[in-house]
């Protein structure tokens, strides 16, 4: 049963990333079916859905991990075809996965520049410009709201929110136009969740980055997202702008479209 959604408010700008009728099948299992999605610069687009709705498949397809079976991805209006995560990263898609891809035993700077060290010389034995890297890492994290006292601090000693910020700052610094955040607030305490949301807000306020926020948390989505897309069983079951959606709609769509009221009634018996 398709959910009725109100008309989205039209935006004048071209979306940074447009996903058009994307499909992905694994053997005879359809993970994504005709999924479409527009993300505009300076906006937070929340991607919501229950477990197994296809959120992970969608972001992995956007990140170049999976090749789609159908449909197209446009970046700045041009069709792109990712063969590897590196292609996606070069096209400006930065993914911050749940495990954050950080090395807890290494320092902030070393994590920030991991795999993309600034160095003088050629090849793996080129000399790292540590001081410059320290300064950039500190500045970049400060620009989205986390002031670290010591770039030589090991990441393992930082809070979950700080780690999240590090991963976000890193993705932005290395040229992400589209920032995909995979459940950034899960597994964090209340205060840290708020820290991360503030960070996301600051990134949004830069105005040059489009953010896709994957989350389970309706409250967080409502607090920060400008636009919502709901996935269920591999299909988009609803989407809309924040101004056009009611809290009830969101809750209902998040649960995959099932009427919570019905469930409540069932449980009450």
């Amino acid at each position: 049963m398709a959910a009725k959604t109100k008309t989205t408010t039209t935006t004048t700008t071209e979306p940074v990333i447009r996903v058009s009728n994307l499909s992905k099948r694994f053997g005879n299992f359809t993970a994504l079916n005709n999924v479409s999605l527009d993300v505009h610069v300076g906006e937070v687009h929340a991607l919501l859905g229950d477990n197994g709705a296809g959120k992970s498949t969608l972001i992995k397809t956007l990140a170049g991990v999976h090749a789609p079976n159908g449909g197209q991805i446009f970046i700045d209006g041009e069709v792109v075809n990712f063969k590897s995560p590196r292609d996606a990263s070069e096209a400006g898609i930065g993914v911050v996965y749940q495990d954050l891809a950080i090395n807890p035993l290494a320092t902030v700077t070393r994590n920030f520049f991991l795999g993309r060290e600034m160095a003088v010389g050629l090849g793996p034995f080129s000399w790292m410009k540590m001081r410059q890297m320290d300064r950039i890492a500190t500045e970049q994290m400060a620009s989205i709201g986390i002031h670290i006292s010591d770039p030589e601090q090991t990441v393992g000693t930082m809070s979950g929110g700080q780690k999240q910020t590090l991963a976000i700052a890193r993705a932005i610094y290395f040229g992400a136009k589209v920032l995909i955040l995979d459940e950034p607030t899960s597994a964090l305490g209340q205060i840290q969740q708020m820290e991360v949301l503030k960070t996301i807000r600051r990134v949004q306020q830069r105005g040059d980055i489009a953010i896709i926020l994957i989350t389970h948390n309706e409250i967080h989505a409502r607090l920060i997202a400008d636009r919502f897309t709901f996935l269920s069983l591999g299909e988009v079951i609803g989407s809309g702008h924040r101004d056009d959606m009611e809290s009830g709609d969101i809750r209902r769509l998040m649960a995959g479209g099932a009427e919570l009221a019905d469930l409540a009634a069932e449980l009450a018996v």
Partner: protein
Amino acid sequence: MARSEADRRRKVGYGESLLRRPEIGAFIVMIVVLVSLGWASGGWQNNLNFLDSTAFSPLGVRNNTRIVAQLGIIAIGAFMLMVAGEFDLSIGSMIGFAGMSLALLLKWGLHITIPFTDIVLVDLDVVPPSLAFLLTLGMTLAFGWLIGNIVVRSGLPSFIVTLAFLFFLRGLTEVCYRFLNRAPGDRSGSTQVSDLPDFKNLIDLERFRSIISYPAEQAIGAAKGCLSVFERPLNNSLAKLDNVKDNIANLATTSKMSPEQLARIKELAPATTSKEELAAKIAEVCKVDPNTISLEMERVDAQKLSADDLLAIFSQIPAGRAESLRNMLEADATRTAERLSNIKGNTVTPASINDIDVAKEFFMTLPTKNPVADLFGGNILEWLANWTNVIGWNITERTGAQWIDGLYAVVGWWIFVALVAWFVMQRTKAGNWIYSTGGNLQAAKANGVPTDGVKISLFMTTAACATIFAATQVFDTNSADAAKGNLKELEAIATAVVGGAILTGGFGSIWGVVFGAIIFGLAQNALFYIPWLDGAYYRMFLGSILLAAALMNESIRKRFTGGI
């Protein structure tokens, strides 16, 4: 201003940050070992000055630093690999293999024929030390590459893969000795080589060819002992007495024998049964005409030339050079005599310096013919040893002469390897990749670090460290043995753990490994200085320190990762 998360991290001062460094434990243990070894070996009786002891006498330092450096080199390889989250148990066997390869190449040369045919691919009677080292390094690097590839491609734990190579390489080493290190008549070869020339001290006397005479009675001795280019083909011709004809022919080309001499030797050779006998025959037939052989001689042997030859050579030394050598020797003699007078309490007259002494000293200053052998097996810091002697240290009590000439070259290699490793680990991209490969493999991969390449190159690095170890040993002692390097892999890993390496990877410091090598090297050598100590105590000590270090590393790791 509101409090932020960052405020919860207490700022620490310089002193405290030093105390919190991961290598501090190893440093403290090292100091304790240094001081107690000094005390136990004589320092206790000498006003508690631990440096005034047999363990830290010049000779003690020379011997200690050698053991420390040998362990240190392989420990650094093992450490870097452990930081990347892998293990290498094949280091010890790799040392044995590399030593075997070097010694056999140097002793027998390199002869490769395609099996079941007569097609000769390579036929080198004499393999110079530089080529022997490069060929050996090529083979060990290939094994390191193979081990690394098996580990990253199969996903098997490196423990199992390298354990397999521990057995395989040791077996291969022994098989090679049995198969290749034998004369034709022997059923199987010896598992050791002990009669290599002293390559690092070979000097070229070609320029004195016309003035050195060979009295008949010295001919055999000269042929046997001093002419290594003569000696090595002899080994080969003995190895293949069946086709001695070809080898004698080879010898003839290098030594410009006359056809008559060659024919005579061919006649005599089949009846010879030992190297010495064949040498004697050749010397006899050729009358050891200096023009037939290249004059390459060990320094010590060169000093044993006849007085006439030495005087002839003296006359060839430029006057200024001879004068400065004489002045130096006279200054040494005066200083030695003064010191001896002080020790003995009566006046000792300085030994007089004659032309022969100058000629002998002259040989000491001639450059080696094999700089590569000297680089691995010679001495380093000779200027420092000389200087310490001049300022009144480094003196033997008995004769008043200089005690040691320098430190073993292996010490220089250790310092070199440690510095390179430190730069790579701390300052280069590669270092960041190594730490992240062990710290969080998935994260490193996600960020584009070539983790497989990192691991493979580190397996090759441990192989290279093992080869350096073997080369310093072979060129120092001029011998090799199938059992060399046994159990060294475990000592290397223990040292790396003392250096702060954790078994899951991603952590540790080169300084810690340097301290660890000093701790274990000194402890291992302590029994030479402390009479009542035996080897069992060393192993108890090693075990306890290893356990303590592992426990401490774990707590440091928890501190750095916030207790995960």
